[in-house]
């Protein structure tokens, strides 16, 4: 058993390692990370929800926001998932070029998901797409979904973002014409109107612009991980204001806060295309990170 120290920030845990990462330590940490993500919202998300509740003047919307805040407290105090849709498990991993794991990280992550499903517990959500047969442990072909990024350095950072279906189902992707940059905002608004109360607003909107068909979607999902207190660009603010002017409100029952934040991520794309993806996130913007290796 190697010596290690854990330090917790709001939703990021740092594990300093004195020697090579041990497989059991890793699996335990990832299962704990999942527990944290399912039970506690990051501080920036909670703050944004509290602000929305304080601002809201529509009594029905206010009652809904109060129920959400009460729910997050009960979940934290009782140590139970805040939503019964504990999602499918999506991981974003950044592997430092000098970090030597010494074991199959993907297999270990899968094992951690099975462990967390049984012990937290999580709702088994993974099914075969055609037969709809449930695997029972949240794993299956291509699931958990793990995205790897190779980065310089000696650390391994893993973020988990459990994603529920209600909001994911309302997400959209469109291949716009290159001359249609001006209609990106309209596409976001149409998507939000079409979604109404179904994705559990107040939402976080991740908008991926450029790249390719699949890259735009990935950018949109990554944008959801941005802290909600990040300064928004004037483009992001413009979209957010327009979204909130729609009056859909908390749970689609009307009100002033339909979205808490809009985050846009871009990538260069082919001169002949303009892919735009909108990933919708419900109020339960769940995610947590762990860093193995400590300081560089």
């Amino acid at each position, binding site marked *: 058993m190697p010596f290690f120290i854990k330090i917790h920030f709001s939703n990021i845990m740092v594990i300093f390692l004195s020697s090579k990462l041990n497989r059991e330590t890793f699996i335990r940490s990832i299962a704990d990370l999942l527990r944290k993500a399912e039970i506690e919202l990051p501080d920036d998300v909670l703050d944004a929800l509290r602000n929305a509740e304080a601002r809201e003047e529509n009594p029905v919307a206010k009652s809904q926001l109060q129920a959400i805040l009460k729910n997050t407290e009960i979940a934290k105090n009782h140590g*139970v998932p805040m939503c019964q849709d504990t999602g499918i498990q999506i991981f974003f991993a950044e592997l430092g070029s000098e970090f030597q794991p010494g074991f199959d990280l993907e297999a270990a992550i899968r094992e951690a998901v099975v462990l967390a499903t049984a012990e937290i517990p999580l709702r088994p959500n993974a099914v075969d797409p055609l037969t709809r047969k449930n695997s029972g442990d949240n794993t299956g072909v291509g699931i958990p979904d793990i995205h790897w990024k190779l980065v310089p350095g000696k650390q391994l950072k893993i973020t988990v973002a459990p994603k529920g279906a209600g909001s994911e189902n309302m997400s959209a992707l469109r291949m716009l014409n290159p001359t249609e940059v001006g209609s990106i905002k309209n596409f976001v608004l149409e998507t939000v109107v079409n979604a109404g109360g179904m994705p559990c607003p107040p939402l976080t909107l991740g908008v991926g612009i450029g790249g390719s068909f699949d890259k735009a979607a990935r950018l949109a999902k990554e944008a959801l991980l941005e802290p909600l207190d990040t300064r928004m660009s004037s483009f992001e603010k413009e979209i957010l204001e327009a979204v909130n002017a729609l009056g859909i409100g908390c749970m689609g029952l009307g009100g002033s806060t339909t979205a808490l934040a809009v985050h846009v991520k871009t990538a260069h794309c082919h001169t002949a295309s303009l892919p735009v993806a909108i990933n919708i996130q419900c109020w339960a913007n769940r995610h947590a990170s762990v860093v193995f290796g400590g300081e560089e």
Partner: protein
Amino acid sequence: MEHHLQTPLKIEDIENLNAGDIVYITGEILTARDEAHARILEIEEKGEELPFSLEGAVVYHCGPLMQQTAKGEEEEWKVVSAGPTTSDRMSKMTPPLLKAHNVRAVIGKGGMKSVASALKDRCVYLAYTGGCAALAAELIKEVKTVHWLDLGMPEAVWVLRVQEFGPLIVGIDTKGKDIFAEVREKAEKVLEGMQK
């Protein structure tokens, strides 16, 4: 207006509920989502009997997270987390369900498109705050039984005893008033204005 209702519900219990009112329910509710709705209609079509009664029933669009605390004959389950799922997925199956059974209230989230006329004089749609599963679990006092567990934990029909289950907002009343449709129409108008 705030209302406290006891199941099974009679038509008189729901006739005077107005869209926007707050409701709390005590008694028995049944969970049913996509697969359970499909099976109920299938059984109906074959003219067979359901293993549970829907007379005066409250149907909750919910795929709960349950934990089995005892197995075998004395099977026991505990609710871990049980918030509402997106109701609109059941929109097409709800009118035939209401035609065949006297379901008096449907609980879910996000509203249902084009069901207000099927609900008229028969049933109310009650909105429960989406994602508030830990709060809901506190108000569910007992898992009475489970049907159709072969459909998987989220899709099975769970019979739950609840106490003061709410706050539920009347989203669609028996007079055909639909808050979700009104909000959606208003949002479409605002969007049209922006597009000009």
